């Protein structure tokens, strides 16, 4: 049977049209866009077209606001480090506890170097408290960085409102929109967002290509200095094939953007309803009213995520887990912990992330496959007995060492 891919928040397949557009840039169109001769000129033209396609998808006012980078992580690092460099008298960073490591690890590192770091907490649904946010905005803050959509739960932050609030206080605002771009309509020119990161491989472009949107007149300091590529804001010969691929992917995303909130959302909702109807002691994580249309984060109590993934994989179904067991640490993910999801559920959280390439048959196959897998693992679990959890599981299992 054909494998089912429901891990699109981790990465996506390149659209065949993307691959086709890229191929000439490995062969006859190999030129360096900076060269005067015709080899270079053709590449330069292709990059310009791609830039406009990215601009259009983001609703940016100018194509010169688009800076190509090597990945989402580079865009995130560039944004934060630029803001700190540009206003050396401001040493405070505001972010949230549920950011991707591309932001969190960097910010925690900067904290060691003397920056003040405020990580906004979230509630059970993964929402931030805007009053608390407002109370932190002052003239020592160099930058606010808040993700548009969370990669694990799909929960959205009100970044447009948060950007407007920061703007009122003269504070730079960056959003990691790696999970949002291509899944939600975005119109940057009508917002106060100063910088935005995106990553190609989350929207059917190749891995290793990213964009940092930098609003015109935003004070900017490059991460990589060298040649004049990207108007001196990101030195290094352009990754022309990937940039062209990203352009095509952005074009496709724009054409299909309606589909995300209709077709894909219906599939996701069907998947969630179907699974929850058949599996007891399971629930959806995150803000179910305000989240990405493609993401389902489902907690299965009293079982551990890796086992579920291995059994799903055997059925040809690819998903991912909210437990960080894969990192060698036994703690559940920082996002689940930040939302206060009980340990009994956090370890058994599975993320299904769909794309417009998924079908209803696939969804129905997953709905059929999941319940027996959970039942099988619960049969092995010391916290489960018969068809329900043992009463008072935290006490029933009493290890003599802690």
């Amino acid at each position, binding site marked *: 049977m054909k494998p089912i891919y429901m891990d699109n928040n981790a990465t996506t397949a390149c659209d065949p049209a993307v691959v086709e557009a890229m191929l000439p840039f490995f062969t006859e169109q190999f030129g360096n866009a900076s060269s005067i001769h015709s080899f270079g000129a053709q590449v330069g033209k292709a990059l310009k077209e791609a830039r406009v396609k990215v601009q259009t998808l983001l609703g940016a006012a100018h194509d010169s606001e688009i800076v190509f980078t090597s990945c989402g992580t580079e865009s995130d690092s560039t944004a934060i480090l630029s803001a700190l460099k540009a206003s050396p008298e401001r040493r405070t960073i505001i972010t949230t506890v549920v950011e991707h490591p591309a932001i969190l690890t960097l910010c925690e590192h900067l904290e060691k170097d003397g920056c003040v770091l405020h990580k906004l907490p979230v509630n059970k649904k993964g929402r931030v408290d805007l009053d608390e946010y407002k109370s932190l905005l002052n003239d020592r803050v160099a930058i606010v960085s808040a993700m548009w959509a969370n990669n694990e739960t799909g929960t959205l932050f009100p970044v447009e409102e948060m950007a407007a609030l920061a703007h009122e206080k003269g504070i730079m605002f960056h959003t990691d929109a790696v999970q949002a771009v291509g899944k939600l309509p975005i119109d940057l020119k009508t917002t106060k967002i100063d910088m935005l990161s995106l990553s190609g491989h989350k929207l059917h472009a190749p891995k290793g290509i990213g964009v940092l949107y930098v609003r015109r007149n935003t004070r900017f300091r490059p991460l990589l200095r060298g040649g004049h590529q990207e108007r001196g804001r990101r030195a290094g010969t352009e990754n022309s094939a990937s940039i062209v691929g990203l352009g095509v992917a952005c074009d496709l995303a724009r054409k299909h953007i309606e589909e995300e909130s209709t077709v894909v959302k219906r599939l996701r909702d069907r998947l969630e309803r179907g699974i929850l109807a058949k599996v007891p002691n399971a629930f959806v994580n995150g803000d179910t009213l305000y989240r990405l249309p493609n993401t389902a984060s489902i907690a299965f109590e009293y079982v*551990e995520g890796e*086992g579920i993934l291995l059994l799903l994989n055997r059925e040809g179904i690819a998903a991912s887990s909210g437990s960080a067991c894969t990192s*060698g*640490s036994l*703690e559940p993910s920082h996002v689940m912990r930040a939302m206060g999801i009980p340990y009994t559920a956090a370890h058994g959280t599975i993320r299904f992330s769909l794309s417009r390439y998924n079908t209803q048959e696939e969804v129905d196959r997953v709905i059929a496959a999941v319940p027996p897998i959970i039942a099988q693992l619960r049969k*092995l*679990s*010391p916290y489960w007995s018969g068809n329900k959890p043992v009463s008072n599981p935290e006490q029933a299992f009493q*290890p003599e*060492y802690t």
Partner: protein
Amino acid sequence: MWDYSEKVREHFFNPRNSGPLENANGIGDVGSIKCGDALRLMLKVQPETGIIEDAHFQTFGCGSAIASSSALTEIIKGKTVDEALLVSNQDIADYLDGLPPEKMHCSVMGREALQAAVANYRGEAWSDEHEEGDLVCKCFAIDAVMIEQTIRGNGLKTMQDVTNYTKAGGGCSACHEKIEDILIAVNGRLYSNEAKANPSLKSTPAPSASPVKPKLTNYQRIRKIEDTLEAIRPMLQRDHGDVALVEVDGKKIYVALSGACQGCSMEAATLAGVQQKLIEALGELVQVLPVGAMANH
């Protein structure tokens, strides 16, 4: 996805001896749901012969935790309790054709459950304060708690010291930043590689205040421990290593490994081997710990 051996996969997909065991007379619970790993081992022991007639498990945990539990039950069935206690975590891993370094704790958990179940069968108390931190050195599977305790216990100052004592950082070197962070957290600053560690090992064993089995006096017990270590030493010395008794605190026996054993990737295995020999010699469950673990007490 993990690089699991066929054997691990097979035991995960078709676990042996899973589920509750009726009439179990030795039950060991280790781990907790908080840690994401919990194992209950249930034994049915023939009281006259001490033979483990049946063993079942229930496990909450990742694929290799389930596979390790399954393997453990297969290994110990038909063995006597005393024979079963000789099963080390490395035996469990070997039975499964190896485990990834990040997952070795699954086999350790299996071994601990076995000790807890045997203690339960014999009506003894078993406790283990073994604590596990984030994996820092992936080449030699050394975690943050182990590194921190060894730094504290031995007054380590430099990256080189840490590598000498724990082996951590001796491979690909990608973890050096993390190890330096731990050194700074403990010492308040980072010393360059020239600074030398200042090992402050106590060498005279202090008599234990804790009650022990009546058949041995404290003196006899310590003599027995020393004799047992003495018998092991030639084996270690062949590998250019050595072991010395540092402290006996009830069921905890602290030793200093030196030479090639100390800090070598086999340190944990060496300690486990020493522990088994001492369990056999003393006829009681004891824990053998590296001297570094003493700093906590």
